[in-house]
């Protein structure tokens, strides 16, 4: 049960509190996920006084402080300008405005809300996360998701999400299927392409299977040198082999099939 509440003014203090083995202290960002389930939590370490809410354009990379609310990301002009607006658009599709005003980019990733379309888009854009523990390290979001938040964080704190600039001339698109706008997506897909004339020079493809983003490196490789319509045929064949689970929103089979349709439609 939650017994204590801390609002450290320095990251070092927050790290010390989170690392304390006697107390089960957890970092608290917006709280919109943590408030739903605080079982096993002794202390809350509120991260709001650490200066981690910011959106910076740094050498064409976007740097999003972990405590930046999703709605600010959605509305930010530099974010809208990046990657044909797909970061902003997928942020807008994170649940509701009342939640987007509180939920933060670092919070939703550290909480493991990888079903978010924003996670799919960020994986397609090769985003990375910065984690502060004893030292500072940066890992790709893809790896963070693969290993899970607990193992990836290793008792440290997620401080920043970095989105590198898309390759010169890259075109990005994002699509989703959801029962209603504010629901969690049944599936989502994000594609970034660099074209050379009528053929694809390079591609990045990520599909959200309802639980988490899956990158499709084999498909990406096979798309190189292909026309868009040939790439769409490849997607129709290869995307259904992604893993997916059945739940209240859709069956695994349905997800696989629709994921392929979404990717195909992004290409043609």
């Amino acid at each position: 049960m939650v017994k204590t509440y801390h609002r450290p003014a320095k990251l070092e203090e927050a790290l010390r509190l989170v690392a304390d083995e006697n107390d089960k202290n957890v970092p608290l960002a917006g709280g919109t996920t943590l408030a739903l389930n605080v079982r096993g939590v002794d202390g809350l370490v509120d991260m709001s006084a650490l200066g981690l809410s910011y959106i910076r354009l740094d050498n064409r990379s976007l740097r999003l402080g972990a405590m930046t609310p999703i709605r600010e990301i959605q509305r930010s002009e530099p974010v809208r300008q990046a990657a044909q607006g797909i970061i902003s658009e997928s942020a807008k599709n994170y649940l509701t405005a009342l939640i987007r005003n509180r939920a933060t980019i670092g919070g939703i990733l550290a909480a493991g809300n990888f079903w978010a379309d924003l996670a799919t888009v960020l994986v397609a854009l090769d985003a990375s996360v910065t984690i502060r523990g004893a030292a500072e390290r940066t890992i790709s979001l893809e790896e963070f998701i693969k290993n899970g938040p607990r193992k990836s964080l290793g008792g440290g704190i997620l401080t920043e999400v970095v989105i590198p600039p898309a390759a010169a001339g890259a075109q990005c698109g994002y699509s989703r299927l959801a029962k209603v706008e504010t629901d969690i997506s049944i599936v989502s897909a994000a594609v970034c392409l660099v074209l050379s004339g009528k053929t694809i020079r390079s591609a990045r493809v990520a599909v959200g299977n309802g639980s988490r983003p899956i990158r499709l490196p084999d498909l990406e490789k096979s798309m190189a040198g292909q026309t868009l319509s040939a790439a769409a045929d490849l997607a129709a064949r290869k995307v259904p082999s992604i893993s997916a689970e059945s739940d209240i929103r859709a069956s695994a089979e349905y997800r696989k099939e629709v994921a392929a349709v979404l990717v195909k439609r992004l290409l043609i």
Partner: protein
Amino acid sequence: MKLNVAINGEAKEFDIHPKDMLLDVLRDDGYTGVKRGCSTGDCGACAIILDGKAVNSCILFAAQAEGGKITTVEGIGNPKVPSPVQREMTDAGGIQCGFCVPGIVVSATALIDENPEPTEDEIREALDGNLCRCTGYVKQIEAITLAVKETRKTRGARLGVA
């Protein structure tokens, strides 16, 4: 622990527990316009404005509001002196059973405070966290559009004075 906040312009101090949600603190203190609906952040009946942003108070630790400025529906207007949003909600027939209305008034007020000329898309986006289970959202969006026109008049008057 202590919680110091300003509610509808009035400074208040509460004794709270770290696990308390802001919704409970507000309702226990008589702000019953803040409704308990789902308690999971889905319905928006518990919406309040915290430091200019409309948020769900049911999934907000009270301690997170420390030092903040809170506006509840009680601070937006009352039956004798309704705000433009409240007046238009009743005039346009945006009121059904009434349970979701405080949350809708809060979301719409936060929107207009921040963006006095919202488009219909912006109104829909700002209200996407407020569920109405009686009918739907057509009348409410009409009401908010009318309230925008209403506030335009008073803004115009203020500009005229300046």
